């Protein structure tokens, strides 16, 4: 197997390396990818069309809205898949005596507990800032959602899984993940109901106190909040399933 792998890698690597000489040189502003008028349109017309200075957020949530919506669905499906792979029946769990059960730590370490108690609210506040300020600075729904989920992961690591599940029990996690996708597609269907295309936010100025250009910006914020809901929920769900081996009782 090793020699087969080595031959494959050498052949593929040689093919790719021989293709490198045809690439445009590093940082070339005249290369086809940078010279193509689509990306130039994104750079010059994003602010006039949607009043969002961060082009990456605008392209992510507005111009390529379908893409982001179904990426969110992929994350949702991955979370459900992990849950259904690892979950076992209660009967199997009682029969499984092969592994020794880990003992719970009764009182958590003072330094770790205090530090995490101080840090978790600040992390959550920063996550909200990242979601809300994603139009004007780097950030957005994916990053903010993952940071918010990481704050719950930190709570589960510093105490145990039950402490985190008091805030986000499994039912609430699944509801949040579904609500995120519903918010995203709800914006799309609202556009359809008002007589425009799916995820064409300009028409939403009829139900928002905003001009058509500002409506696009505000709808992007709403869509990012939906993405953040799903990311938060699924990241915590994946962690709690992987860390407890699917039974949601024992922790690391």
């Amino acid at each position, binding site marked *: *197997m090793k020699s087969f792998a080595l031959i*494959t890698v050498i052949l593929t690597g040689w093919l790719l390396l021989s293709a490198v000489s045809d690439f445009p040189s*590093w940082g070339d502003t005249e290369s086809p990818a940078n010279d193509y008028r689509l990306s130039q349109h994104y750079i010059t017309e994003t602010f006039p069309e949607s009043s969002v*200075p961060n*082009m990456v957020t605008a392209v992510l949530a507005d111009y390529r809205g379908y893409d982001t919506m179904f990426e969110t669905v992929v994350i949702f499906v991955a979370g459900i898949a992990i849950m259904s792979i690892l979950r076992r029946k209660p009967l199997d769990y009682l029969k499984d005596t092969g592994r020794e059960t880990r003992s719970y730590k009764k009182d958590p370490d003072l330094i770790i507990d205090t530090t995490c108690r101080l840090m978790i609210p600040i992390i959550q506040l920063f996550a909200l800032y990242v979601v809300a300020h994603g139009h004007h600075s780097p950030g957005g729904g*994916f990053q903010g959602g993952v940071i918010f989920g990481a704050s719950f992961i930190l709570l589960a690591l510093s105490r145990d899984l039950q402490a985190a599940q008091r805030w986000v029990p499994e039912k609430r996690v699944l509801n949040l993940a579904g609500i995120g996708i519903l918010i995203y597609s709800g914006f799309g269907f609202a556009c359809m109901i008002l007589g425009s295309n799916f995820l064409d936010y300009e028409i939403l100025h009829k139900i928002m106190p905003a001009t058509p250009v500002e409506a696009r910006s505000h709808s992007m914020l709403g869509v990012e909040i939906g993405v953040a809901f799903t990311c938060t929920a699924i990241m915590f769900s994946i962690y709690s399933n992987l860390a407890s081996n699917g039974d949601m009782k024992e922790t690391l």
Partner: protein
Amino acid sequence: MELLEALSTKFNYWIYIIIMMIGLYAMISKNNLVKKLIGMSIFQTAIILFYVSIGVKEGATIPILYHDQVHPSHGYSHHKADTGHIEDHHPSHEEIVANLLIEPDDFGNPLPHVLMLTAIVVGVATLGVGLALTQKIYRDFGSIEESEILESIKSAK
């Protein structure tokens, strides 16, 4: 001389291909399933690195407009000359756009960034599914080494 020029402008691509091949080799030849998944992640990040590097422009900044371009509070001297009371006037979107000058070569190409941003998040979801399958395999076979799993499948038949 030609080789030196190619070396200075293309060395990044060579190293990307080396990283990608390290990941591919690990995916094929490693015996441990967690090692295979780490190899998959390395392969994935190498491809993302290649895509992001396509959008790099020499001398360009991040793809976010400057604050002065978006909030031009001091750039309206001719407006102030027309009417005296515009000292605290907040310019409307149309006024800002009319005076906005964006040079495409000043900002990095945002399109590869967008495509790869979603790919990273989906990458961690696929890594999670792979790790869940690894745990399930460990629960059923008591090992995460590929050879031991294949042996116990053979002996069960």
